[in-house]
């Protein structure tokens, strides 16, 4: 392997933590035990937002391609610097 991937993002919880960590969902969701509530629709929109940013098909679900991209080594800075910033670009 050229570089070692971190554990794949394959479960909804892992995906939610990833989306929260990199600015697509409320940061409080990084901690599953925080008890923060989130609607399925919010998660779906966040996945679409991530898929759009990464240039993937915008299915709104954690499909294999999306899981692969969420597992890639990457920079720890959040992709979203404030809600709606993609629109401001």
């Amino acid at each position, binding site marked *: 392997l*050229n*570089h*070692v*991937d*971190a*554990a794949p993002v394959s479960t909804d919880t892992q995906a939610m933590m990833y989306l929260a960590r*990199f600015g697509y969902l409320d940061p409080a969701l990084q901690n599953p035990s925080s008890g923060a509530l989130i609607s399925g629709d919010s998660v779906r929109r966040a996945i679409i937002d991530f898929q*759009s*940013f*990464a*240039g993937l098909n915008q299915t709104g679900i954690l499909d294999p391609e999306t899981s692969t*991209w969420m597992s*890639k*080594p*990457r*920079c*720890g*800075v*959040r*992709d979203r*610097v404030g809600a709606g*910033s*993609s629109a*401001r*670009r």
Partner: protein
Amino acid sequence: KRYALQGSRWRVKQLTYSITKYPSALKTADVDRELAKAFQVWEDVTELTFVHLRTGKVHIEIRFESGEHGDGDAFDGTGGTLAHAYFPIYGGDAHFDESETWTINSYKGTNLFQVAAHEFGHSLGLSHSDVRSALMAPFYRGYEPNFKLDNDDVVAIQQLYGKSGNVATTTETSSRPLPPGRATTPRVSFDDGSNGRGNAELCGSEGKIDTMFTGPDNKAYVFKGEKYWKLEAEAVAPGYPRSIRADWEGLPGNIDAAFTWTNGRTYFFKGSRYWRYTNFELDADYPKDLSEGFAGVPSNIDTALVWSGNGKIYFFKGSQYWRFDPQQKPPIKSTYPKDISNWEGLPNSLDAAFQFTNGYSYFFKNGQYWRFNDRSFKVDEGQPGYPRPAGKWWFGC
């Protein structure tokens, strides 16, 4: 699809950096060379120049750390997050995950030069780009022997720092960015520590102030004695200090506290009375007694601010504070006053407190200031730590 600017940038073109913690698996000289190459990527297309310092204060501090390393953003071992960096407004430092297998000119492991060039893009004010081929895309693409900056990256960085080729010389010698909008005046100082632009009374050992607030024009104002100053993005605004009585009709000197509320009106407090100004004009029927509108707030308070954490008004006096919520009846709950120690790290008997336009709340006492971290609900850590000298960081001393 294109680049994104975070919103802050350095005001000087010559930036210094130091590597204060090296990875264990690479030679120091190799790391120095690769990181210098990574800065060169941005030097080649802008007016920026980067100087590697071995000691002393610098703009960008670089460290190789593993796991939790003090900034609340823990690394996660091999893979996953490789590194992160802070935008200029947050200091510009860059941290790399020591647990990664950092390599040079190799398809194995993770290429240090490429990741460093990306992180330094953040240190300069670039956010992530959704152009896949851009250096500022967030995902590591593996080693690229013929690496070249993408046009998306070039356009982005030149928006912030101009194009290369006409490198300007700079007289700025300060090694740390001041809070955004703070004075970056040249370090020409007079024996009173001022820079000759009207801030002498705010500098030196007498840096004590009466109050500080953000005005309806989003400028920061400092009141002390019979005078007041307006702080512009670059320095103390020309023509200040000015007389309070000359500009604020009806307002006395030696103010206790002031803040601007969401209605755009500015409230001043002194003794047992308060004044209300709309667009710098005193409203009719003012001053009023605190009991008319701020019942429960004691007289002779130390300071007050609209706290960035929840948008409520907080009054401080000695070792106690009161929370005032205009939407509540009564606005101050019976559980107040509470002890200021709840605001971890803040001293008693404050001089001033205010919410700056960057959303942070700052507290001042005896010429020093503290920045408060609303999320952790305690004084921010920062590098250097708090308290810091207010004169140097806020008043251009």
